[in-house]
């Protein structure tokens, strides 16, 4: 037989497997109808307002305060979730104890539990007469119906992100590296700080960013516990719902655009962290 292959430009590399055209076409069709066109509608609406229009909405004191609460509290909650999430991930991968698998499964509860259910449950538990709320009340902390309640709900939904992003990396740590560090005379603490933790930083940051983004956008698990007092405990997503119920579509679109902008920046940050991590540590 005679043969020769020379690269010629084609959209996809030739393959014997069939079905590329139909599956690719269907994918693009669904993506366009479900995601791109509706999101495009928001962009169209927002560009109708213009940058000045959006800033004008953002400058409204109630909107500004809601955005500040959403972003500020989410930042604190993501920080908390990251610290405890790391601890949980470490304990789950490094230590053996009875019930470990159950604890491991419980971590995903916020993924599986519908947000409205989580919302009313958290409100009940942390209310002044609730199981934990009453104890907090005794030491002078009002949890439900204050920003503290928002914080609690955001930690709840952010926790699995913090745990699940670092957990596989902790599991992959090469024990020989730790042993090498120990044979070179490093104390356990020095080994942890200098050898074990640094490669985990990108994953911790990614988990933090994911928890933060999720917290900012969260609605269902927060509104029941937050009390929703304007200027005090009103979050940005709730304000969108309020604007919509007042048929103020422009205002709702403006707030949504600001929130989308921030989530894209967060996504970008995650990608940058991962690109850096790949360069620096050779993995994501």
């Amino acid at each position, binding site marked *: 037989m005679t043969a020769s292959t020379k690269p010629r430009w084609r959209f*996809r*590399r030739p*393959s014997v*497997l069939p079905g*590329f055209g139909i*599956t*690719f076409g*269907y*994918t693009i069709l*669904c993506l366009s109808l*479900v*995601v*791109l*066109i*509706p*999101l495009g*509608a*928001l962009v169209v609406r927002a560009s109708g307002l213009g940058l000045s229009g959006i800033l004008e909405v953002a400058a409204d004191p109630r909107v500004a305060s809601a955005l500040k609460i959403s972003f500020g509290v989410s930042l604190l909650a993501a920080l908390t979730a990251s610290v*405890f999430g790391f*601890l*949980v991930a*470490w304990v789950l991968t*490094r*230590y053996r104890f009875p019930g470990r*698998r159950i604890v491991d*499964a*419980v*971590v*995903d*509860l*916020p993924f599986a*539990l*519908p*947000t*409205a*259910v*989580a919302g009313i*449950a*958290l409100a*009940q*538990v942390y209310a002044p007469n609730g*199981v934990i709320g009453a104890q907090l009340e005794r030491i002078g902390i009002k949890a439900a119906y204050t920003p503290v309640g928002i914080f*609690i709900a955001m930690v*709840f939904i952010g926790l699995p992100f913090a745990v699940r992003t670092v957990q*596989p990396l902790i599991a992959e740590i090469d*024990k020989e590296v*730790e*042993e090498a560090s*120990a044979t070179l005379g490093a104390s356990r603490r020095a080994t942890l700080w200098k050898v074990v933790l640094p490669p985990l930083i990108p994953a911790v940051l990614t988990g933090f960013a994911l928890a933060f983004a999720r917290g*900012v*956008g969260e*609605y269902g698990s927060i509104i029941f516990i937050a009390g929703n007092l304007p200027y005090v405990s009103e979050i940005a*997503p709730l304000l969108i*719902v309020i604007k*919509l119920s007042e048929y103020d*579509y422009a205002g*709702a*679109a403006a707030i*949504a655009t600001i929130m*989308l902008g921030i989530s894209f920046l967060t996504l970008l940050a995650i990608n940058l962290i991962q690109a850096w991590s790949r360069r620096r540590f050779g993995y994501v």
Partner: protein
Amino acid sequence: MSETAATTFAALPAKPDTPRSAVTEGRAVRWTLIAVAIVFLALFLVVPLATVFVQALSKGWETYLATFREPDALAAVRLTLIVAAIAVPFNLVFGIAASWAIAKFEFPGKSLLVTLIDLPFSVSPVVSGLIYVLVFSAQGVFGAFFVQHGIQVLFALPGIVLATIFVTFPFVARELIPLMQEQGTAEEEAALTLGASGLWAFLTVTLPNIRWGLLYSVLLCNARAMGEFGAVSVVSGHIRGLTNTIPLHVEILYNEYNFVAAFAVASLLAGLALVTLLIKSVLEWRYAGELAAGGRH
């Protein structure tokens, strides 16, 4: 030096307890950390979950069961099942098609496509609902068209289904894409060289290889579809007995201070969540190798 070392070594008495490993923490530290982790998880996750069931049953089984004899509650359950029965298969077919095109073929712009498919995960649920309101409301982009033709999208089943599809859009695809990529194309090629048609190869080789990943992702997709609150809340219009899904019904009951009923209805969803978690964990333990690594969500 080596001679002294050898002597010392031989002279060492057997130590009563083994020295602690160089690669773990002391016993006390270990148990403290475990305790902190468990207490933290208990306070934030387990106590709220338990509360749902405790509150639901606080007035006894009779009251609990009575909640579900309410026509509004039944209507909510029915609507939720219908929505999931449309949204989940839609995303299943989409996910299989997308992962086949993306994982088994090489073409430019692939990572952009994956990012776009993932997009709904990074959009706030409320914004997810809002974009459909902007498209279909009377002043919306296509609203006029639908209003003219008398098709009610918002505050009706189509809107709820669309919003649900949006928020669960990436579930199946993002589990199957890495899974199929990991598996490569050699087995399909082998099937083709043995004379199988493309469809036959897909059914007898590809599908069995991804079955656990498929089940896993459908499970999570379904849990989210039945439990979605924010996005559905925006597009549903909260019409009792008509456009209320279970989560929305929970909200209404709660806001009416009908706490026992709210928690009773919520316990349905909490039960679903527990079953989902259980099956998910079993799949992860037994078939870890047949799920996409790190594809948990």
